[in-house]
């Protein structure tokens, strides 16, 4: 049944969530990192920008923070404040458990 092999195609690559870290200065400039080069630099800068903004706005709201942890189902972002900049760790999460049947319900 070769006809439907048409389905396979080599097209744009999906963004794979990486494991690694990077440091960013107070201006949002990424200084160093261990993220794979395949992870786009604009995305790294975007993460850095959001983290720095959250730290600075928290301080402005009288809530100085030294560490932020952002939890998603597939990713954990940990950011530690470094003299106005930050070191940011990205850690993809493994599937929580084997799912034999799933998944959402409305009771």
């Amino acid at each position, binding site marked *: 049944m070769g006809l439907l092999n048409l389905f396979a195609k080599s*097209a744009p690559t*999906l*963004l*794979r*969530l990486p494991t690694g870290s990077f440091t960013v200065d107070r201006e949002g400039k990424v200084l160093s990192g261990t993220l794979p080069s395949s992870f786009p630099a604009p995305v790294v800068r975007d993460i850095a920008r959001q983290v720095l903004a959250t730290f600075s706005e928290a301080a402005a709201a009288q809530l*100085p923070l030294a560490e932020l942890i952002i939890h998603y189902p597939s990713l954990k972002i940990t950011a530690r404040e470094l003299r106005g900049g930050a070191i940011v760790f990205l850690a993809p999460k493994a599937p929580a458990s084997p799912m034999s049947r799933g*998944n959402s*319900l409305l009771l």
Partner: protein
Amino acid sequence: MERRPRILLADDDPDLLELYREMLAQLPGQPEIHTAVGGARALTMLETEPYQVLICDLKMPKLDGLQVLAIVRRKYPDLRTVALTAEVDEQFRSRAYALGVDLFWTKPATEHETRLFLECVASLLGRETEVGFRGVQTRSLMDIVQMECLSRSSAVLRITNGALGGKIWIQDGELVDAEAPGLEGEAAFHRILSWKAGNFEMLPAEPSRPRQIYKPYNALLLESAQALDEAYAGLAAADAPPPPPSPLAQVSRVEGVEFVLALPADAPGEHAARGLENPERMAAWTRQSLERFRALGDHLGAGALDRIEGFGPQRHVALTTQGATEFCVGWKNTLAPDEVREQMQKVLALWAS
């Protein structure tokens, strides 16, 4: 005249879209098949017309399938979604399910796979949208428990309701134990059955789980059903004890809590707070932070934002959303991160109850 169901197909390859269109046109009910070249176009079409099912390729330029599905899940929670990929990759599969897709399907390459794929799409089209288990069949949690018990199954049913989580242990068709935040055994079972919505997973059986429930499953289900009926009908009001303190007051009594801020998601200017002298600034920061990292999660295809935790020299803080309410809870800085997490679960359980 009954309206034909509508399916939206999104892929960056027009040839494949045409092929899919022909395949899906064979489905019973003769659904209307609409196509979108690319994710951005699909989002535009969803805004203008209602659809029952979105079938979305994962690998697309500019806006990839995971990003599209993240946005769609949030904006159109009733829309059934199917993620398609030509490449089997466990990370993408788990991320797609974390986003809440109904089906993750490797692009069919054989006649048999094509037939199965069509059957699954037909099944999605046939499901009611109002109630039931998404991705499986239209059944309530009571039905599922009953089904597992009647079939003498052994499994662990894990249910999540927003930030709340619970488990029901079934062994050889008997209810063995249940666990909900702060509750165990029968009380936990009734609490879980009282939840109105959520997600569930079937986990492998745990035969070594100590038994805490001894009543027959049908008696427990009957009790739960009666309690729910009474709650709905307001019959319990006559014997009810004096009204408890407001949820916010209860939450602020949880050990370690310094302040609580509750923000209705649909009313940007409003908030309720305890323990804060100037809640407006904190409310603005909470909303901005949740919105910012929600958008980042969509962009990364990492799934819906679960929570944000902040640790500082003066106090810690935890931000999350439960139902239609956004929360910012301040914690004493003597609490360890794990304790903040644990106590935050209690706060959310109290709020939900």
